[in-house]
């Protein structure tokens, strides 16, 4: 029996370093896990930021007063070439003739075909279009613009 007890004690002694190592490992793993979470929490900080938006600089533009009546006036219908714009304006022209006394209708695509271009592209080209239309001295221009 004493012999057996001694054997047990020796067995325990042999086990002890392993146990200590195991406990220490678990402890260190816990310390590591709790100290470094999967996603480190960033600290908030104060920032001074320059505004990237900039400011709008606009030269005011004068919009012209409209005539009080279209009776006896010249109306230019301006189509830029986008599909169906001419059909829409054709009907507007018919209705103007039916409803407005002595109105004169001019269709830009008939008198100035060079202005039929959905995307004038440059400002200069757009100005050219405007000058071409202005040559007909309309009292007002009704234009169909978009898709």
């Amino acid at each position, binding site marked *: 029996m004493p012999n057996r007890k001694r054997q047990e004690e020796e067995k325990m002694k042999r086990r002890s370093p392993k146990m200590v190592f195991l406990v220490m490992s678990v402890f260190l793993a816990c310390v590591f896990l709790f100290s470094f979470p999967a996603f480190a929490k*960033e600290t908030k900080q*104060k*920032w*001074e*930021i*320059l*505004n*990237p*938006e*900039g*400011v*709008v*600089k*606009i030269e*005011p*533009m*004068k*919009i*012209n*007063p*409209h*005539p*009080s009546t*279209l009776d006896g006036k010249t*109306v230019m219908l*301006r189509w830029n*070439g986008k*599909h*169906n*714009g001419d*059909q*829409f304006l054709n*009907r*507007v022209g018919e*209705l103007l003739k039916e*409803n407005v006394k002595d109105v004169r209708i001019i269709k830009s695509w008939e008198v100035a*075909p*060079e*202005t*039929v*271009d*959905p*995307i004038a*592209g*440059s*400002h200069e080209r*757009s100005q050219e*279009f*405007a*000058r071409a*239309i*202005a040559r007909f001295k309309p009292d*007002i*221009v*009704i*234009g*169909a*613009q*978009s*898709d």
Partner: protein
Amino acid sequence: MDQLNLEKLGIPTVTISSSEFISLAKDTALGNGAADFSVVVVPHPMGMIPQAEIRKKAETAFPEILKAATDWKPVAKLPPQTPVFPAGRFQLEGTIEEVNRFFFEKGLSLGLPVIPPTPERVAGMLKGTTRKPDDLLGMVPPRMGALTVELVAIHAAMAGCEPEYMPVLIAALEALLDPRANWRGLTTTTATSAVLVIVNGPVIYETGIASRQGAAGSGHHANASIGYAINLIADIVGGSKAPSPDKSLLGGPGDFVCWVFGENQLALPQGWDPYHVDRGFNKTDSTVTVMGVYPPVDNIDHWSTTPDEHVNWWAHLVTPLLSIGGPCWVSQMYQPHIVALGPEHAQLVSGAGWTKDRFRKAFWEKARIPFSAWPKGCPNVDLLVEKLGPVNADTPIPITLRFEELHVVVAGGAGKHSHFFPPFPGCFPVTRTIKK
């Protein structure tokens, strides 16, 4: 825009706009100084519907059109004007992630991460240029945001540029602000368009602009950050945000980072000048060329062994319809188109003794389609007749009116690819010298 130019000539106007495009019309007017204008809104769409339907829309809108023509008075006023320099400042508290979220929610980024433009970072960026921070480069359309050198530095900082990229970025922006570049059209269109930036000269090597393998792709810091900064400026200073006034139907990666590459001058065939020399500059000049383009067509030609065969490949791939030219929009036929030849294709062509001119002339003569291939309903056929002479169904229609409008650059690295960039309507290449 055209209506506003009529107003400037003293002619009153009424604009008919479809409901999907009214905000673009209003933004365009405001950007040109008209806080208010006479507009009648018609339910979208107007195009691609039967004739009876469009006539019905006209009848419904007619009372309002008549009222707008005879009884319209401006109501809205322009916003108050503030000095363009220095840029405003604001304080934030948060993590970098929270700062980025703030930027995105306030419309101050494109959704990709940005580096916060602190005063220190912006001051560092300004060291890359001799230009004064209060120099005004111009107004960025369509919002007409005033673009100072300081504001360029702010966006360069946000995009992660190095200070030495500033001269390239400033030159590219000045080129885009040239009316010939049609930046407005490019940033408000329904099309999937993008800015193309071609860099030439010693600056390529001094600044680390990639010009060889994968130059316009990832892994090239200068190209990517310059391309990112340009689009940040277009969207934030220019206000071109989707869905309006940026009306891109689908959009694309070019809305985030535009195309930027240096010409591969080391791979230029003997006797072929670099692109900037074709544009009238000296070989020793450093230049940047910008142009509004549609996505490119990739010519994957692994098989040709002669220039004639190679040109035939081009002719099968590239047609005038790619750039919606010809009878639809004849004006497109005046615009330069960019042919970015891969070095191996360039060597194939030049190895047979072909000059650049001979190549583009052969390309131009081959890449045609008969008039009968055009969609029905295109306007402007009369103008085409005026430009090309009488046309019938079999008349081969070229891409451009002159072969000289095919602009050739040598781009990229090893491989059997070349790229064709059709121009966006109204966009012409604009080249600027890069000054430090």
